[in-house]
């Protein structure tokens, strides 16, 4: 449970940062939201295994 909160949170932060960055350029809403969703998905995929195993290790499992 704890791991899922961490990787989801971090992925949301990555997507938010992406959204924030798009504000400095001329992008359509679809590009902004679509890009943020893609960044969120990839971040989740990258972080899920890493965070899950790190949390498991820390908790002695």
């Amino acid at each position: 449970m704890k791991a899922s909160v961490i990787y989801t949170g971090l992925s949301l932060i990555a997507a938010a940062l992406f959204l924030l960055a798009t504000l400095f350029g001329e992008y359509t809403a679809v590009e902004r939201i679509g890009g943020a969703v893609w960044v969120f998905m990839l971040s989740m995929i990258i972080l899920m295994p890493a965070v899950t195993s790190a949390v498991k290790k820390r908790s002695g499992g």
Partner: protein
Amino acid sequence: MPTPRKKTSLALFIGGMTCAACVRHVEGALQTVPGVSMVTVNLATSRAAVEYDPSQATLADLKKAVEDMGYSASLDVDELSITGMSCAACVKNIERVVATMPGVSSVVVNLAAGTARVEYAPTVTPLPDIITAIGDIGYGAAEKIEGQAALDREQGARAEEIKKQKRSLIIAGTLGLIVMLGMFQPYWILADFVPAWMNNKVFLFFLTTPIVFGPGRQFFVNSWNGLKRGLTDMNLLYATGIGAAYLIAVINTFFPDTGFGGHDATFYEAAALLTVFIILGRYLEAVTRGRTSESIRHLMKLQPKLARVIREGIESEITAEAVLVGDIVAVRPGEVIAVDGVVTEGYSAVDQAMVTGESIPVEKKSGDEILGGTLNKTGAFRFRATRVGRETALGQIIRLVEEAQTTKAPIQKLADRVAGQFIAGVHAIALIVFVFWFFIGFEAWFTPDTRLILTPYVLTGLGVFGFALLTSVTVLIISCPCALGLATPSAVMAGSGKGAEYGVLFKGADAMEATARLDAVVFDKTGTLTKGEPSVTDVIGLENERNDILRLAAIAEKHSEHPLGEAIVRAYREKFGEPDDAESFEAVPGHGIIASIEDKFILLGNRRLMATNGVNIEALESEAARLESEGKTAMFAAADGKLLGIVAVADTLKATAARAVAELKKMGLKVFMITGDNTRTAAAVGRQAGIEDVLAEVLPQDKASEVKKLQSQGLKTAMVGDGINDAPALAQADVGIAIGSGTDVAKETGNVILVRNDPLDAVAAVQVGRKTLGLIKQNLFWAFGYNTLAIPIGMGVLYPFTHQMVSPELAALLMATSSLSVTLNTLRMRSFVPAVRREKAAA
């Protein structure tokens, strides 16, 4: 004091694994089961070795963990033949008894066929216990040969996988072809042949959707199952690639104004062909992967099905599995021998090539050992069965090779680790690539004439999101490290099987790799380089005929039990037949023999015997000294007080010993000989064999420390010995090579077992090891090389210069090609013949 937890281990057969990430996937799944302490999964053999605490986890838990990930899991399955059943109640009885035994997962009894199929963990409950339990309730049960069952199971699973992928390929391929025709309808000359309505995006949507959610469904389901447990694998790469291409196409079809490129950027063919190519890759891989284990399959096929047994004077044909130890088995010319045994009557020549690698048929007479699986050539004979079922030489060899194929070479562990980390790495690269092209690349380099390589597409209408997403998806597809996962296990399977063909059995992949990396080989002298029994080497006469001297010596020694005397009698018998009997005979311990023959008083022995009987040996003293300097034992022969000549006896080199040493030296290895003999004899034998580095006067217990000394000099050392008194040295060496184990291979010490007693096989072992390691390195090179080259291209490194992008479907084709190239490279091992054996065959 806490009670220590009792651990048990078992092997699970995993179905549906395709790459190294699947290995990590399954390993990860099993490790999440409470009580599991160790998991090793082998992709090539589709086996998972699991060590767990049965008080915390059950068989069902382990199977469920694997099945939840989208793979199938099964335990060992054995077929038993059951006798004595008469009705359905018998079936229920047997099933009830067996099903409640620990370690038994399922049991299905077939009354009509008289069989029981048991799925069970042999390490928890061995098969004999199940047989005994059935026997205890009044039925007869016998085991089916395990290797054959394993072969059937493996073949069945592979056939199922091939069938599944073939079906998917036909569906996806047919629909994909129509989608491609429809997409490219406006281009080239297709407009003349393909109707325009086929380019309708809604029509293409209806064709692509069944591909993505039919044959492509497996990628989404498997990756979701993995993600639920925090595991990623190749399926995820495929799913994100196919999903993204499909989603863009659907959005551009139904909502063309949302900024994804509109109707010009509906990549239905990308989603369709991506699926087709991935499934094509899996199909070809399943087909070719099965061929790498051809050698072991060939060995298994040697196991005969029937045997003609004589019980109570009646000859009857029964299944080979039903032959019992002690049974008398009749064999006719041209028949395959069912089990191991000893010939009791008859005479024949038997072709043992399939088991021992010997190219010439071996003559068999009463008292000789024969092997199951070998071919009777000429005569008819009978033999008494000594080993049956899995205990036969062939059964042991198959088991050994199977076990070797389930182990991992050290080099593979590295590849597995890299492949496992690769997935996350690829997604990270895909993220970086997306962000780069979104914020920087698109504005800096995008031009409206952008094309996809090898397609007529011009991506004029593609927006920044569509372009960045396309590049990101291409990276995901092109980077798939499938080839990396296959590189090592496929080569190990092919190499260990090839070794078995030549009578070289590696006990594990680590032994193969260690053999390939050897710097030095230490040969034990007696029985390894030499024949291990003395034979006559020289007969020197003063005036008499040499044959006459040998004849008198043989008559004198005829009843001697001394090994030197036996050698003289054997030498005479080989040339002239049985020697006459001496009229009188007296053995003088430590001196020799005194005998009388044809009124002659014969002396045969050493200097002391001659001196005590007043025989002058001065004339041949220098010859005797020369022979002794060559490591031979010189025996003087005299008649009626007059010196006749010398008979020299020595433990001679095997015919191939010198060549084996020369070959090893040619291959850059240092060669040593180790022996308990005195320095002079050892040096003489070493000279004949071509070995300069001789370690003489070494007691058996000190051989291991001599090997250790060489290792301390940084030499990766192999010890070649007979595996009995050399056991400590074999264990100390980096590679212990047990030579001439003959048929009882399972009992041998050592990492490599040579079935025959031929030093050249030690050379063959190194050659097979080196070839296998070479294959592994080539495979890894191709796999890594592909990814190293393909990823930057997929990232769009060349785009600013060419304005062309790799399409996702081309990426999929490249990825499938890399896996196939690795598998095909491994298949080259099928035609490999170790150089020493190649020359022998040619000769």
